[in-house]
């Protein structure tokens, strides 16, 4: 065990910091759930890609830097510290990208990854359906192969970023006789295909962060199938693993929230201490964010040495999503009567970002498999409790 960064790692940190300081937008961008904000964020992806900072863990030949997980964590720390923009293409670069590298053909990788990397093609998810949420194996949207073309019919919902995205990826039922997780196929669909209707769904903040997608005889070439026909479930499990796991939720974001929470508490200490529970909650938030960081570094080091992710990784999403929610709940208590003010309200004086975070934190325990489903997974696969 050696808990010091190497000179090389420190130099990498300096390089990240230097580039971000010179290139990250000085003013926060509009939300990427607005049309203008989406364009701004797409441009930022191009800027990142030009500096080869878009996907540092991707291989060099694909425009990445081939970074290991420790360098990735360092990159994220610097990224969140400077409050660089959120990643509009996270469905692509963090979820589909790694899945493509594992399951895609050379043609698919060459065709799809470069445009994903520079933000030219932004990706939406198309997992859930009105009757297939936590129970994803209940998917009913069909894809029927005719010659070299799939004909897709049905409906997807809660498709994050689908309003302005260029493509979506998801699972479709290719074998109409099949049940549950058999007979599903992973297909990539251009959102400008004839027969597609996207209906935006406003989220808690009023912005259309997700959408319903209706498929009416949508034709998709077989070259857009990822993995074998009928193998969709195992491909999707790999993607979902990326979503819940280490890659998307590095600790930096939560540590920065905890730091800002400590600062918020310190700035409002007199009123905050009227409720003695607040100080304890702030301290607990700091400790949990640190625990999450330490555990992530420990896992990353183990993986770097050839270890495998085990069933214990199912605890990950429960921990960070509930931490995020409780940190923002504490911030709302500290803000008191100002907590409800929207960011642009004249008297908000900058407190609105906490409200945005509070609203967003409500989604964490729900998406990527509700925390109830995650707890079942922990109990059954990690602890071995009976089904």
């Amino acid at each position, binding site marked *: 065990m050696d808990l010091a960064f190497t000179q090389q790692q420190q130099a990498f940190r300096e390089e990240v910091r230097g580039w971000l300081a010179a290139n990250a937008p000085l003013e926060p961008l509009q939300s990427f759930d607005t049309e203008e904000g989406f364009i701004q964020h797409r441009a930022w992806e191009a800027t990142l890609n030009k500096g080869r900072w878009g996907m540092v863990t991707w291989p060099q030949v694909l425009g990445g830097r081939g970074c290991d997980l420790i360098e990735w964590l360092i990159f994220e720390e610097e990224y969140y510290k400077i409050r660089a923009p959120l990643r509009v293409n996270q469905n692509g670069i963090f979820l589909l990208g790694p899945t493509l590298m594992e399951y895609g053909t050379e043609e698919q990788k060459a065709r799809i990854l470069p445009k994903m990397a520079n933000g030219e093609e932004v990706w939406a998810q198309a997992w859930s359906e009105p009757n297939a949420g936590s129970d994803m194996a209940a998917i009913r949207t069909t894809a029927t192969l005719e010659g070299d073309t799939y004909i897709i019919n049905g409906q997807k919902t809660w498709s994050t970023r689908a309003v302005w995205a260029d493509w979506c990826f998801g699972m479709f039922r290719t074998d109409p006789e099949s049940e549950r997780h058999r007979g599903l196929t992973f297909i990539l669909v251009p959102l400008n295909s004839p027969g597609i209707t996207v209906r935006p769904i406003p989220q808690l903040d009023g912005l259309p962060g997700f959408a319903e997608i209706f498929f009416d005889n949508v034709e998709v070439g077989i070259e857009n199938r990822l993995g074998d026909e009928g193998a969709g479930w195992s491909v999707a499990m790999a993607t979902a693993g990326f979503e819940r796991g280490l890659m998307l939720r590095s600790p930096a974001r939560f540590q920065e929230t905890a730091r800002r929470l400590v600062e918020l508490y310190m700035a409002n200490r007199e009123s905050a201490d009227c409720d003695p529970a607040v100080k304890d909650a702030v301290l607990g938030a700091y*400790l*949990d964010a640190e625990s999450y960081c*330490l555990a992530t570094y420990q896992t990353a*080091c183990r993986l770097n040495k050839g270890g495998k992710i085990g069933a214990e990784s199912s605890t990950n999403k429960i921990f960070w999503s509930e931490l995020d929610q409780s940190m923002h709940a504490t911030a709302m208590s500290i803000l008191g009567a100002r907590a409800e003010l929207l960011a642009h309200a004249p008297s908000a004086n900058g407190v609105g970002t906490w409200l945005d975070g509070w609203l967003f934190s409500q989604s964490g325990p729900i998406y990527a498999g509700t925390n109830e489903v995650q707890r079942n997974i922990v*109990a059954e696969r990690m602890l071995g409790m009976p089904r």
Partner: protein
Amino acid sequence: MDFTFSEDQLLFQESVRDFLVNEVTAERIRASWTTDSGREDALWNQLAELGLTGMTVPEVHGGLGMTELDFVLLAQECGYVGLPEPLVHTVMVAVPLLNDMGGELAAQWLPKVASGEAKVIVGLEQNVLVEDAHVADLLLIQQGAKLYAATPDQVSLRHNESVDPSRKLFTVELLDGASVVASGEQCAALTASTLNRGALGCAAQVLGLAQRMIDLSVQYTSERQQFGKPIGSFQAVKHHMANVAVRLEYAKAPTHRAAYAVAMDQDVAAHAVSHAKLVACEAANLAAKNSVQVHGAMGYTWEVDLHIFMKKAWALANTWGDAGFHKRRIGERIFVTDAVLGAGATFV
């Protein structure tokens, strides 16, 4: 950056776990409750033969010359079996204190500790009572700004019963002959680092205790049937245990980091130890709460083994600094104007 244990450390953990699980059974612990001392020389000698009592004793004094980091995984295993013998105290508390003090006392006692011939027990004011004072061949007792050394004939002990029948607690009155071995700033420094190591040992043990409580609960709820199914198949029961697993999973890395910080004598050690003690004890307390619940009425009995581990976890939660003590120390680091917090600050 390498936050992993070495092959050797993991192999040692495995062999010690095998030994402890085979030797320190619940039956043996229950049997020890019926004896006067609650301690077994035979078991202590076995631990010594494995080199465990001398793990942190320097090689020149007949030990293995290892560190708190080498021992932290083993301390977890001691917790897992609810080991009544004062092994964690010896390796994490008494020996390092003697190492810090050095001199004649260390040269005289460390070889005997390594060989298993003698036990050295430390009493800090923070703990009010002294654990295992009745089996000590040498006591190192803090009183105010002074640290005393005393042999059994130089003290008067009074036993205090604990909720955990395996814990033997004593008030120690110093009699004629007890000698001052450190005072003033030196005593304060020795006491401070000893307290950190005691709290670290506590954190590691309760990680093991929490895991044991999970294992017992999973086993019980897999066997116990109601409504025609194992009760462990019900989500309400599953989620109780999943909640424990989550808290426990994220208490491990802080404890291992604290062991590293202590072993490397880093400035952050006290802070890291307090972090570990708080989150590990929180996980263990939740393990106790949810385990007794999923055991139903059986969990409220003396017959079922759960209480062996639950009671130890309860006791350890408030020793070597209770939650208030450790939260205050965390607060002293984060609730200050120049606090270094946030992304990238963890390993600074």
